[in-house]
């Protein structure tokens, strides 16, 4: 009896020790959770909106991915990200392709998305609408900002009243969303990158590829930092990189595009004979309207055109070169704007997109035909870009050119972050990304929003393939006659090999001698 009691006490002591150890272990896990949030992203199906369902011949299903708005508070407010799944027509072994959209802040253009899906060789296409955009909830669009669009057509970019109205509208949008409980600091690329990883997790993807077009590359590159499981390859079309400063890019990218057009023109005997120095013509056109602004009517709408507007709209024209006929007429159009006695018709053609473009889109954002969720863009701008941009660089580049300074160095986007109050991201989100995952980059050399030194930017990728395409800009859809389809499909099938792109690499337009 005595022995059995002693044994019991010993057993109890062991239990106490074990329980204490478990307690310490559990406490350790709990403290660790503050740096490594534990949550489970979930996916729930919903009916597809009609525009999604009808955008492709493929069977399409939709749903919402639920994730924490702020992953440092995983049990806090949850948000829902819209996802569509365009299924393969035939059974396939190909890895699914995750598509994160075109440019930051923009809703998907489902016609173009369906077109792209229909031209991929078989894989399922899984689309994720970035947080704050499209059907994702909440959508951070700012009708307040759109409301001042008509004013922007008739006033110079540095008009104090216009700028005050813009800042007021940005602030009103910020405050409305903040009152609704939206944590606007959680809509940067750091959280969006984690969304991509969570999507793969929630859907149980064991191997997957990613495609982005334009500035949503920032989201993909951020996702790559965590070496997500199963990521097989990445295709970036006309990417922005984590350290891209949009203001500096505006000078360098636009200059490089004009220079590239000049070079293409010099390869065409007729073009070089008629337009021997397009870079000078471009500068002369800007100066012409800087010195003598005019007002033109387009579809009944009056638009005041000065040098700064022409600069923005020419950049917009370069960015939107989605078809070869427009490229063909570009040298003649620039020459007409510089020197023609009456350039009105060319002027109308160049500024016309402003009528339907979102506020301060043309010349600032690469794609102005769709609807932008301004707040989603502002959060990235003010969290991931502006805090790390060099304040002095733009001034140095502009020299004494008033239009460049007014549009960019002292342009309206310099005012946004004063009204769009968000926490800056960690500086690590702007460092170059290194990864062994194969990456294919399409680089359109006419793209005024493209990186000027792509080779340097992709230096951290040990398996990167760069396709420099001379007659290509910032397309949302593929440009005939050399669409991205073939090299992209070839790469997705064999991501360790450089795809062939003889059409895109060798194609040169025959320029027209008449302006737009």
């Amino acid at each position, binding site marked *: 009896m005595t022995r059995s009691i002693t044994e019991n006490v010993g057993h109890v002591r062991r239990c106490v020790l074990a329980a204490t150890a478990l307690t310490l272990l559990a406490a350790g896990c709990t403290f660790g959770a503050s740096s490594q949030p534990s949550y489970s992203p979930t996916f729930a199906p*919903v009916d597809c909106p009609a525009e999604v369902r009808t955008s492709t011949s493929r069977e399409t299903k939709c749903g919402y991915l639920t994730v924490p708005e702020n992953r440092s508070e995983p049990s806090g407010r*949850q948000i829902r990200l819209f996802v569509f799944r365009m299924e393969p027509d035939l059974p396939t072994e190909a890895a699914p392709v995750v598509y994160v959209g075109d440019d930051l802040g923009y809703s998907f253009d489902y016609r173009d998305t369906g077109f792209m899906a229909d031209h991929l060789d078989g894989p399922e296409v899984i689309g994720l609408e970035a947080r704050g955009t499209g059907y994702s909830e909440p959508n951070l*669009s700012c009708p307040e900002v*759109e409301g001042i669009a008509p004013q922007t057509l008739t006033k110079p970019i540095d008009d104090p009243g216009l700028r005050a109205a813009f800042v007021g509208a940005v602030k009103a949008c910020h405050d409305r969303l903040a009152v609704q409980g939206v944590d606007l600091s959680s809509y940067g690329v750091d959280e969006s990158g984690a969304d991509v990883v969570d999507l793969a997790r929630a859907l149980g993807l064991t191997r997957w590829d990613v495609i982005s077009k334009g500035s949503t590359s920032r989201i993909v590159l951020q996702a790559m930092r965590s070496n997500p499981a199963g990521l097989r390859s990445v295709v970036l079309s006309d990417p922005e990189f984590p350290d891209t400063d949009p203001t500096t890019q505006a000078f360098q990218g636009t200059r490089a595009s004009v220079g590239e057009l000049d070079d293409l023109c010099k390869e065409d005997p007729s073009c070089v004979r008629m337009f021997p120095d397009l870079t000078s013509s471009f500068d002369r056109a800007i100066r012409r309207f800087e010195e003598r602004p005019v007002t033109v009517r387009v579809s009944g709408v009056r638009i005041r055109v000065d040098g700064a507007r022409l600069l923005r709209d020419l950049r917009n024209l370069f960015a939107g070169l989605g078809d070869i006929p427009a490229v063909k007429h570009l040298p003649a159009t620039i020459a007409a704007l510089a020197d023609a006695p009456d350039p009105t018709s060319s002027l109308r053609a160049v500024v016309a997109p402003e009528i339907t473009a979102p506020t301060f889109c043309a010349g600032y954002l690469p794609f102005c035909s769709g609807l932008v969720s301004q707040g989603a863009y502002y959060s990235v701008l003010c969290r991931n870009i502006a805090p790390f941009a060099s304040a002095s660089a733009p001034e140095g580049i502009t020299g004494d050119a008033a239009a460049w300074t007014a549009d960019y160095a002292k342009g309206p986007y310099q005012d946004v972050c004063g009204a769009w109050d968000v926490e800056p991201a960690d500086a690590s989100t702007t460092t170059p990304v290194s990864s062994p995952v194969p990456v294919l980059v399409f680089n359109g050399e006419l793209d005024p929003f493209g990186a000027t030194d792509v080779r340097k930017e992709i230096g951290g990728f040990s398996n990167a393939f760069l396709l420099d395409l001379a007659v290509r800009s910032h397309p949302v859809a593929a440009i005939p006659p050399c669409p991205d389809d073939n090299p992209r499909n070839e790469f997705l099938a064999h991501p360790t090999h450089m795809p062939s792109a003889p059409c895109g690499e060798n194609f040169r337009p025959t320029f027209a001698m008449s302006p737009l």
Partner: protein
Amino acid sequence: MSIDSRLREGLQRSMSAIATDPDEHLEDARRQGHRRVVIRRALTSAGVAAVVVLVAILGPAVLGALRGGQREPISSPSTLPIVGDYVVRLSPADAGGSGVPHAAGTWVLKLQGDGVLQLAPLRNGNLGGGPSQFQLTGSGFITTALAGAACPGVGSYTWFRSGSTLTFSLVTDPCPLRVAIFSSHPWRAT
């Protein structure tokens, strides 16, 4: 052995079993009492430790569930509650008040889940314009419908949906045409 002797012997064995040393038993009792205290303390400690472990492991999940219950996503499960296609008929009198008499007729409104609004007259397509934006703030509705030359600024309304009827009430809007279209009559879902 006689019966009496056997009885005496039995009684003596019983008495020897009863007759013990009191000091020795006192010590035993003290030891047993101490052991019981040790066991009780040990069991209590083990119980407390187990509770701590359970709280540490399950607490965050429970708190998370409670918080999660309080913080639902902004919109309804599938789409915004206002999403749909609607029509309204503007009388010549309504249109005349807006300063755009030829706006009379049937207007079609499409509100999408991505915050895109499309508004166009059934016949005079020139008045419609392109897609524009709307945002909901509880019962508030703001929009840039007809933005551009036809309508400057942002229209602000309250909205109420009952069955297939959607009613907008004006808060502020600098555009008389938009005011007439949105708030003259309730809209009917199609």
